[in-house]
């Protein structure tokens, strides 16, 4: 499990359309600024959120995102949870391979997003869909 105590109420946002992906970016940006991430780290976490939100929309058939601030006593951070009830990811190893895509993209969504954050957890199954939790800590 990832360490850290959640602070405040997580902000939720549905992902149903292209415009929602834009809203997710703005939501994550706001929280990242609030926990004082550096400009580069803000950019990284917003980019990762954009990739994952698009995955939720395109592969998961839409879903929800929750953005919360976390605090482990020494540092603060942003934690984002993407959840969908789509078909799940059949082969995780393959999905994390740079350049592999089933959706006509560049195949950098999952693998790229994982490189941009500090913690990355994924649970996926055909029954429950996919749930991805990412965390970015301030330096």
């Amino acid at each position, binding site marked *: 499990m990832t360490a850290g105590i959640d602070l405040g109420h997580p902000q939720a946002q549905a992902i149903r359309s292209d415009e929602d992906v834009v809203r997710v970016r703005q939501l994550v940006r706001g929280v990242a600024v609030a926990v004082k991430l550096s400009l*580069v780290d803000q950019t990284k976490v917003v980019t990762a959120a954009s990739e994952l939100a698009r995955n939720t929309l395109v592969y998961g058939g839409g879903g929800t995102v929750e953005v919360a601030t976390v605090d482990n006593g020494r540092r603060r951070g942003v934690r984002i949870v993407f959840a969908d009830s789509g078909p799940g990811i059949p082969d995780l190893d393959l999905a994390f391979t740079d350049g592999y895509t089933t959706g006509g993209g560049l195949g950098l969504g999952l693998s790229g997003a994982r490189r941009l954050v500090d913690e990355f957890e994924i649970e996926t199954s055909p029954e429950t869909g996919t749930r991805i939790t990412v965390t970015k800590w301030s330096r």
Partner: protein
Amino acid sequence: MERVPILKIGDILLVSIQLDMSDQTAVALQEDLAERIVATGCHGVIIDITALDIVDSFVGRMLSTIASISKVLDAETVVVGMRPAVAITLVELGLSLNGIRTALNVERGMELIAAARADELDYQLDDDPDAETATP
């Protein structure tokens, strides 16, 4: 859906992206640009992304596609004004923007296009057997 405006300045089309684009807007821009290149006969496209605070793989792919399409339509594309944080993130993401020319700002971008056109004209001159003897 919002659309990104395309300005024509001389022989160059200038696209200054000022909003956080949805994927649809990005795709629309791609289509609009192709039409404008053909309609205007411009030989240069400058895409100014100074205002973009992130470029994800979708927008990255759009930029690559625009560059390839313009190439086919005999126009040079230069992406200008990428922020340092965006560039660092793209490197981490693993996106290399292959085939895209970049410049620090619009001015440098215009120089780059002008230089590329000049090179092309030079080649045409070189093809002419009299060209070399003609110069003193």
